[in-house]
């Protein structure tokens, strides 16, 4: 991952969902077929290392710093995509 935010990165909810799925599959902690927008976050192999890695990857790609607490209370990648979309929306 580059340290420079990708300003061309798509930011629709659907695109963010696709990006999240790609990242979790890249981490390779669970079977790729299990990584879906509806799967429980707790089933995706996101231990502390990969939660922190995902925070850093979001920062690299979308230029916004995310704390690990961002994922608390989100039950699925789909919910994370919606919340991330809201975070990235221009205020």
């Amino acid at each position: 991952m580059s340290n420079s935010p990708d300003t061309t990165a798509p930011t629709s909810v659907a695109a963010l969902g696709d990006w999240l799925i790609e990242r979790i599959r890249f981490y390779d902690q669970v079977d790729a077929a299990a990584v879906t927008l509806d799967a429980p976050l707790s089933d995706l192999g996101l231990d502390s290392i990969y939660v922190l890695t995902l925070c850093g990857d979001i920062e690299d790609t979308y230029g916004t710093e995310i704390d690990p607490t961002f994922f608390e209370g989100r039950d699925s990648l789909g919910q994370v995509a919606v919340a991330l979309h809201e975070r990235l929306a221009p205020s």
Partner: protein
Amino acid sequence: MTAVTSPPRLRASEGCLQTRGGVVRWRLGLRDPAEAASTVAREWVEQIVRAHGLFAWTGFAAVPPFMKPRFASGGADFSVSHSGAFVLVAVGVGARVGVDVEAAPFEAFRSTALRRRMLTPAEHDRLARVPADARLPHLARVWTAKEALVKASGEGLRRDFRRFAVPALLDAPVSPLEAAVAVLSRDAPPEVLRLTPLLAAPMPEAPFPTPLPAAPEAALTELS
């Protein structure tokens, strides 16, 4: 005729730490690949509590995902971790405990995003001085110490890893396994015990004898 098979020969090391006003018992070993790591870890915790009579066993409490597990009753504390085939557990009575184990090849630590989120500036500088082929084990060593500490405190990732440092034990030999136990006792500074040196000795087969020699302790450095 019923076929009879022998259970796999499991190997583990077990030890005991006396803390100020408390005791911590830990076990590090290999699990049966046919069993889920989380199941093995909870079995080991229960075995430790029962075998050493630490308190009256009443089971585990139900806790939400990503929260520190706890016993159903009593003031004791426990922590579990697994990586690959390795499982590490610890039970603390009169002390809070956290554990973490990471097994080679430590591929996760290639991520520059992770390194940026887990190291202090001084730790970044130190990493640059580590030989290239030792950087992944070095990072695993730092990670296990920090992760064990935040698990002991119950803060988890709410504590920013970029804001506190642990000694990286630069002179320690590279190990394919890094394992740490953190202990928080009342009126005492945090302690992080690196278990990896114990691996130089062969792990005994089950049942697990206790205690084994303790590994060197490591102090913590807090950033303001």
